[in-house]
Each structure stands twice: as structure tokens, then as C-alpha cells.
């Protein structure tokens, strides 16, 4: 039944990783298709004509776009196993709030850290750490954001963990110094097979970023 679910993806994308983790948590068989973003496939352009971006989840021929929407879709369709969102509406709202927070902050700030220098980079680093500290506050003493089990916010945030190495190298700082609880949480997540097999090696991601910087003439 693998052909029922197809994922159009790009290996270093944290958004793609979210979907890989969700599918793995649910034990769903699927076909993974790697996209070359400089030469997008006809399938990608057909399935996501508006944004032309990955990841795209194709279920029985119908496309679902946008990673947070895809993860919620997966949770709703395959609701029998490993629920990602809590069942209580208030807790669900809380999970959605923090997922939205991750989306508003982490990617853009992280991007600024590896693409800029000087004052702009310093400002991005400061806000990035502040954002991570807020997330640490939300995690508290829980094993995962989802409590005893991996949940929605865990799936949404953990893919950035193997990009932390990129931010640290380019920004010349250590995240663990500022946010030890969050690093400990990420390492706990990586103990799970669904996460470990969905995240590429951080050195590989860094190598990819160095290539990008060279290609775009970024210092």
C-alpha cells in the first residue's frame, strides 16, 4: 500500500523532516521522492502549483501542502496509533500555539544567523536564544512537549536540532550553554527511531549549507 502515500521532499528540509517523523510514528508505509529544488519535477509543480514547495504529501492521489497542515492531517487520518495532538481542546490549542510560535521564529531567525554577519546576525542570535528559552519554559520538567510521549510540538521543533550545528558554526556560539534543557530534550527525541531515521547527519547539513553559501556568494 506504499503507493497510497507519497512524500515529495528534500533531504535537509526541517519541514520535510516533520512529515517523515509523523509518518514513522504512525507506522505508515510511503514512497519517498527526492526533489531537486533547482529543477522541480512536473509532479511537484502539479501537486503544489501555488507555492511550488516541498514537502508535499500525496494521499490516494490528492495533495496536502504545508508541513503543519500535513502533520495534523496524518494525525487525523491515522488516529488509531501514536496520537500527536492531545485529546483535550485546551491542550490542543496550547500545542497549536507553540507550533505556530516555532514557525514564526525558529526558521527565519536561524536563516538570518547563517546568512548574515555583524549587527544583523547578533540581533538574530539574541532573539533566537530568547525564543528557545521560551520553548524551554513550555517544556518544563516534561520528558517531551507532548508529555510522556512524542507530540505535535516535538515533531514540529526537533527537525531544527540538526540545523543547530549550522547556526552554531556560522554564528560562533553554543546553544547548549544557553539552553541545556532543550538540548537534553532533543537528544531524548533522537533516541526514538522515528526521529533518528528522519533527521540527516548534522555534518552533512552543514556541508550542504557551505555549498549554498558559496553558490550565493554569502560570506
Amino acid at each position, binding site marked *: 500500500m506504499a503507493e497510497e502515500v507519497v512524500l515529495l521532499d528534500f533531504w535537509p528540509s526541517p519541514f520535510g523532516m516533520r512529515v517523515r517523523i509523523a509518518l514513522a510514528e504512525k507506522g505508515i508505509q510511503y514512497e519517498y521522492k527526492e526533489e531537486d529544488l533547482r529543477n522541480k519535477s512536473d509532479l511537484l509543480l502539479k501537486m503544489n502549483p*501555488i507555492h511550488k514547495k516541498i514537502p508535499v504529501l500525496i*494521499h490516494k492521489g*490528492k495533495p*496536502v*501542502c*504545508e508541513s503543519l*497542515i*500535513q502533520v*495534523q*492531517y496524518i494525525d*487525523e*487520518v491515522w488516529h488509531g496509533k501514536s496520537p500527536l495532538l492531545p485529546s483535550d*481542546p*485546551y491542550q*490542543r*490549542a*496550547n500545542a*497549536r*500555539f507553540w507550533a*505556530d*510560535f516555532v514557525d514564526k521564529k525558529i526558521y527565519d531567525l536561524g536563516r538570518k544567523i547563517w546568512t548574515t554577519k555583524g549587527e544583523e546576525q547578533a540581533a538574530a542570535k539574541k532573539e533566537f536564544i530568547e525564543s528557545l528559552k*521560551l520553548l524551554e519554559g513550555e517544556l518544563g520538567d516534561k520528558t517531551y512537549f507532548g508529555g510522556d510521549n512524542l507530540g505535535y510540538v516535538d515533531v514540529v521543533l526537533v527537525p531544527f536540532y540538526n540545523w543547530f550545528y549550522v547556526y552554531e558554526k556560522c554564528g560562533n556560539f553554543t546553544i547548549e550553554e544557553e539552553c541545556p534543557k532543550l538540548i537534553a530534550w532533543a537528544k531524548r527525541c533522537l533516541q526514538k527511531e522515528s526521529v533518528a531515521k528522519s533527521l540527516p547527519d548534522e555534518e552533512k547539513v552543514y556541508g550542504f549549507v557551505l555549498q549554498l553559501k558559496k553558490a550565493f556568494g554569502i560570506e
Partner: protein
Amino acid sequence: MSEEVKVLGNWGSCFSRRVELALKIKGVEYEYIEEDVYGNKSPLLLKYNPVHKKVPVLLHNGKPIAESLVIIEYIEETWKGTPILPEDPYEKAMARFWTKFVDEKCLPALWRAVWSPENEREKAVEEACKCLETLQSALNGKRFFGGDTVGLVDIAANFIGFWLRIIQEATGHGDLLSAEKFPTLFKWTDEFVSCSVVKQSLPPRDKLLAFFKARVAEANASK
């Protein structure tokens, strides 16, 4: 069972009005608390939305929820009655997709086009119109984005349904949303505002027009 529902909002904010519209669709009674977003933020707002310090915030039996779209999904899940989202997971995903498109593409593009300096205006208007054209395609012959009744996408697009035409009147530029350029989307705005539950959730037209005329005058004075 006594229930306490409060909304911290602002009279002119389309995000705040989205939440009020969702509550009215469900027939939920609530207490409205006006926040002066241009002045000092109240201790209540800072307490209940410490992360973003913005309206709207919904308080349900003392527990706060922030971010209008998160709030609307909570309202949908908490109170039965008229549905705001489809039941089918795929249709639900499509409604969330278009809602995100409105929030992350349409609204910023429209806002940029409205306030852009003359020399950048043409390009900003072109980009905003591309968004409107794409959004129009989502209507696909339906009366509302939600089908026969107002749904999540209609609520999210309230800025386009009501605020935009008033802003166009204030600026004197009618080149974004017009009946000639976007006939079906324009017709939707009429359907939207004539819906009785929507009417109850909109700010007073004259007050909003005056507000934007003042902002336009300010912007021109500072040139």
C-alpha cells in the same frame, strides 16, 4: 453549567473580529474587553499573552488562548452547533491551506500595496492582485469559501471581505479589489457582509473609514 468567556480585543482589528465572528456563529455569549493597542498594554493583556502581547486573547473559564486561528480551532472543538470546519480530514486540510494562504500571503501583500510609496506601488499592487486572483480560484462557484455557509476561510478573509473596500475608499485607490478585476471575489464580499452573523461582528463602517482616513493623512503629512 456556568461558563465564563471573555475576549480581549480591539474594535478595529480584523484578527480580534475573527474571534468574535466565530463565537457568534456558535451562539456563545461572551464579555468583550477593549484593549488600547496603540497606547499602553494593559496588565491583563500582558498577563494572558506574555509571549506576543497582542490581541485577540480568548479567556475560557480563566484560561487564556492567543492567536486568532488557534482560538477559532479551539472554539470549533469546544462548542458544537454550526460547524466552522469540514469534518472530512482532506477538506479540513484544504480549509487550513487557504486560511494560511490568506494570513501569510494575501494580507501582507495587500497591506504592503496599501501603504507603499508611489514609486513602489505598481509592483506591490501587481503582487497583491496575484494573491487575490489565486484566492478567488478557491471560491470555485461556491457562495462562500466554506460552501453554503461561512467557514474558517471566510472568517480568516474578513479583512478582504470588509476592511479592504473601506481602506480603498480612504486612500482613493480602487485598483486592488474591484468588481471588474475580481468579479467572483467581489461578489463574495457582498455575500459576506450581508450575512447576519457577520454583520454583528463587524466594526462600524463610518468609524473604520474615519480611522483609515486619519492614517492616510498622517502618512501623507510625513512625506
